[in-house]
């Protein structure tokens, strides 16, 4: 662990050294290469086979290298000792690592050749972070707290900017900073750029702390929106500075305020427009599914750039674009595209965040920007800290008069302490014009120090503070279905009670908006189909189902026993039909005992043995499968009934625009309906105490036997073209022999293990509470304790053997199984299987 970290670090360092030497060397040569044509002509004596063309690729290569270095930096930070990472926030570590990298660059170049340029930051690094944050914004929470967030973002930021600027100016006038060429307006400009809490830093720190959701949304929403505000303020003040003090009169000030409003609201409005555009666009991207996820990025970025072009607030624009479009985009796009989108967003955002922090560190190692003025720097830190606290408490005090659930004092403390400054402030500082602001470098260095101070120091102390204050932490993130149902019920109840007591309240508005949204906006922005089944609860349910299926299949895959899924029809040709229906009737007890006995022992032989699996389709699967099927037999027979045989065709062809999985609509539908039906049945049976198992089993038998006939008649061709499957089929026949004997659990159990919270253990999947007393397969414990008589096993053995085909592997297996002592059973089996795979 530790060594790998060092290795990583070493590699990073080494890489950077090389890169710099390379660049250094190359830039040294630049003079010589002034006239490449000339140069080339002189040297060429023949056709060069390989030429070294660094300049040809220089810029993209450097970019890629830095991205790579940043990624490695992140890797090393993450991989670092967990004791360190639990204390240090990641962002702080990245900055510190940036110091080192910057030191190396400095050592090689004797100047800082790499800096975080404001244009790079604002155009290429920031947008995706904001887009990610806004796209994943918990909308309901955000909008229900929007009032508070806006107040913090707008008034809080203005308050911070004004007070910090004015106080610094006051101190300057009082002589605390010595001799500086700086006026009131410049101080206010500085105040405005340092005022904003940075979303990047805030997310990075708060994500690790897990505070409660209201607190998180307040801090996070504020940080997101106040960036917009601070940029606007900055622009206004910059315009004032350029205008010069004497030119400013009341009219100009009003114009400034007006600009503020226009820029902020115009930006937000533009974002909404682009969100609508995007939603409309995704309505009709059905046939270009493979690129539809890209639209979100492109349109989001367009929203950003357009706002920038119109000198509106770009950050607000992209924020609102993301927040508003998420619902419709999610409904309109294909499930896969959404997954793609999520991952891509996270990838980009995380990547840029890393880059930003690393470069914030690197930038520091530069003698050019460092101007030290103790008074200015310390007072800035002091003031932003103090005024943040005052601002938060003041605004919260006002807000609490109107809030139904007041923001608690502890939360307020955390909010004020969470005023982290970040790259936005630095970017703005770096954009200052040196002509109008002579003390630009002092401002940059102060900003950097503030950033380091807040991100590193406050970041480190945030977690202990939260723990010490016992801030309410976030509850578990995944709501249970029942909680969601209850939430839904709340909404209705609250609305109803408001109606009854005759008040037009929040719920009245929410409901009115919801109705409007449902009737008109969704109609406009959503695919008709998506609209139909987008009911909130339904989607959760659907998701659950989907998750279950995925879990189940992957579990099966892990165990290498998916075979039975594909051939579940054949699998159901069970022993009852062919050999022993009389057995079944005569000795049901024994058979139950038998099967549960098997369940019992397999439960502890289980997974440890066959972890490294073979792919589900393989000639050798038989032996393995025999084993596994017993292993997770519970899961198997539970799902067997309603597992839809996938009509997936694996076409081996390349296509740029399609993944060739033709999963039909009906299939999904059918799976869903089947699940529903069987759940229903199981509940009915459980509820009424009727054991329906028998009926179901019989039904299966008939239907399946019929199908099996087909299967045998045309041999391998029956099994979906997988040559292997024939073997698998015959083999699974045996397995199902085992299942079917276990007939009681088939009907009475719950069919879909998906709904069980702990899916990992197949042994849990039959829900005891649903089963009736006598008809029930004994619980795990009971099964284990069942009396075991070798006799009984033997008696059943021949029947079993006859069940299976003439597969020699299986014969060996089965007989060994029946003869061995049960404790050693798994072991032996395993040993026998081994050679086959080795």
């Amino acid at each position, binding site marked *: 662990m530790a060594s790998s970290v060092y290795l990583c670090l070493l590699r990073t360092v080494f890489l950077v050294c090389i890169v710099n030497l390379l660049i250094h060397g190359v830039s040294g040569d630049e003079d010589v290469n002034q006239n490449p044509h000339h140069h080339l002509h002189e040297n060429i004596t023949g056709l060069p086979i390989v030429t070294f063309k660094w300049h040809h690729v220089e810029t993209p290569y450097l970019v890629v290298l830095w991205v790579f270095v940043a990624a490695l930096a992140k890797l090393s930070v993450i991989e670092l000792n967990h004791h360190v990472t639990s204390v240090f926030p990641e962002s702080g570590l990245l900055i510190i690592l940036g110091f080192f990298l910057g030191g190396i660059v400095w050592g090689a170049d004797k100047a800082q050749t790499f800096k975080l340029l404001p244009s790079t930051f604002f155009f290429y690094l920031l947008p995706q972070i904001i887009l990610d944050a806004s796209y994943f914004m918990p909308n309901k929470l955000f909008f229900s707290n929007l009032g508070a967030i806006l107040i913090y973002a707008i008034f809080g930021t203005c308050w911070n900017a004004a007070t910090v600027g004015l106080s610094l100016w006051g101190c300057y006038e009082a002589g605390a900073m010595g001799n500086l060429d700086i006026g009131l307006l410049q101080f206010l400009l500085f105040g405005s750029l340092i005022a904003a809490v940075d979303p990047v830093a805030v997310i990075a720190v708060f994500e690790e702390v897990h505070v409660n959701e209201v607190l998180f949304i307040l801090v996070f929403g504020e940080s997101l929106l106040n960036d917009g505000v601070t940029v606007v303020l900055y622009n206004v003040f910059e315009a004032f500075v350029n205008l010069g003090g004497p030119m400013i009169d009341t009219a100009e000030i009003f114009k400034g305020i007006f600009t503020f409003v226009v820029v902020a609201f115009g930006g937000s409005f533009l974002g909404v427009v682009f969100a609508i555009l995007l939603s409309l666009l995704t309505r009709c991207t059905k046939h270009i599914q493979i690129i539809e996820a890209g639209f979100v990025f492109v349109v989001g970025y367009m929203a950003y750039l357009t706002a920038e072009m119109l000198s509106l607030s770009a950050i607000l624009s992209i924020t609102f674009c993301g927040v508003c479009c998420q619902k419709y985009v999610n409904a309109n796009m294909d499930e896969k595209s959404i997954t793609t989108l999520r991952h891509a967003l996270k990838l980009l955002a995380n990547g840029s965040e890393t880059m930003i922090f690393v470069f914030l560190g690197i930038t520091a190692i530069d003698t050019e920007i460092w101007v030290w003025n103790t008074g200015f720097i310390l007072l800035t830190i002091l003031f932003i800290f103090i005024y943040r606290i005052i601002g938060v408490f003041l605004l919260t005090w006002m807000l609490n008069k109107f809030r139904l659930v007041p923001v608690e004092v502890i939360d307020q403390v955390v909010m004020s302490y969470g005023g982290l400054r970040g790259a936005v402030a630095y970017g703005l500082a770096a954009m200052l014009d040196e002509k109008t602001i002579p003390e630009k470098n002092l401002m940059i260095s102060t900003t950097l120090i503030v950033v380091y101070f807040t991100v590193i120091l406050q970041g480190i102390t945030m977690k202990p503070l939260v723990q010490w204050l016992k801030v309410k932490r976030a509850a578990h993130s995944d709501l249970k279905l029942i909680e969601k149902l209850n939430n839904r019920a709340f909404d209705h109840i609250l609305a109803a009670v408001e109606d009854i007591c005759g008040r037009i309240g929040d719920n009245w508005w929410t409901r009115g908006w919801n109705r409007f949204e449902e009737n008109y906006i969704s109609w406009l922005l959503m695919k008709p189909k998506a609209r139909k089944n987008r*009911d909130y*609860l339904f989607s959760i349910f659907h998701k659950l189902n989907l998750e279950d299926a995925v879990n189940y299949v992957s579990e099966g895959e892990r165990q290498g026993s998916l075979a039975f899924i594909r051939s579940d029809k054949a699998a159901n040709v069970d022993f009852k039909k062919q050999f022993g229906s009389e057995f079944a009737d005569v000795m049901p007890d024994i058979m139950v005992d038998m099967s549960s006995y098997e369940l019992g022992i397999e439960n502890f032989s289980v997974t440890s043995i066959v972890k490294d699996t073979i792919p589900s389709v393989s000639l050798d699967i038989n032996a393995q499968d025999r084993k596994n099927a017993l292993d997770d037999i519970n899961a198997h027979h539970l799902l067997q009934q309603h597992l839809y045989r996938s009509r997936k065709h694996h076409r081996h062809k390349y296509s740029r625009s399609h993944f060739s999985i033709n999963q039909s609509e009906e299939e999904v539908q059918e799976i869903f309906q089947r699940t*529903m039906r069987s759940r229903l049945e199981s509940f009915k049976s459980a509820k009424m105490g009727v054991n329906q198992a028998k009926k179901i089993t019989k039904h299966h038998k008939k239907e399946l036997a019929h199908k099996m006939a087909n299967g045998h008649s045309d041999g391998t061709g029956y099994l979906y073209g997988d040559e292997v499957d024939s073997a698998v089929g015959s083999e699974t026949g045996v397995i199902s022999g085992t299942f079917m004997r276990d007939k009681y659990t088939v009907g009475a159990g719950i069919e879909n293990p998906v709904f069980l919270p702990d899916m990992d253990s197949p042994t849990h999947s039959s829900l005891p509470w649903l089963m009736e007393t006598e008809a029930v397969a004994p619980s795990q414990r009971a099964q284990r304790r069942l009396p075991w008589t070798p006799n009984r096993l033997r008696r059943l053995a021949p029947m079993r053997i006859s069940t299976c085909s003439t597969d020699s592997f299986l014969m060996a297996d089965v007989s060994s199984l029946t003869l061995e002592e049960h404790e050693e059973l798994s072991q032996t089996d395993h040993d026998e299987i081994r050679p086959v795979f080795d």
Partner: protein
Amino acid sequence: MGSFQSLPDDHQYRTLSQKTGFSLDQIAILHNRFKQLSQNEETLRRDDLKTIQDLESNPIRSEIIEAFFDRRNFQKDGVGSVEEIGFEEFLTIMSYFRAPPHHITEEQREEMRRAKLRFLFNMHDTDNDGTITLEEYRHVVEELLSRSGALGRETAKGIADAAMLEVASISVGHMAPDEFYEGITFEHFLKILKGIEIETRMHIRFLNMDTTVLCK
């Protein structure tokens, strides 16, 4: 209880205020509303509530209205339902939806939470046997989803079943084979909804301003 109906007496308001925690202004407003709903009668009947227009689109309207006439919500061990309620009962029901006061001890919070959850529980447990059975829960879910149209009853059942299953697996964990999950008891209900901060959610804002004129 009827005496102050015609003559809103300060003293009676005060008693009610102590009982339910509403301020006098709020009580006055609610009283106005009460009279408006009951057409100046002294008692309120189900039909009065059913005529509220805004309520018509509420999918779980009948449950909510029923809760207003449920004896369990008025006193500790009441059983059954009543035909009509007076203002005091009306206020009692409303007080379930009061926001928690700003300063509150941990026990009070817990108490409040229990009361609110009990109200919800009673709403689900229609036959008053102390458990929410699957049938009862299915009914609620069906009603909840009845407005969304696209979903059939089957789906609603499926969802209810899934939810119930979840509850069973959470609250009971591993059950012996002969056990049968009867339904959600209040204890389980408390346990399941642990994550929801009901004390900060199940409330509406009672204004000190009369808006009864606005809604009809």
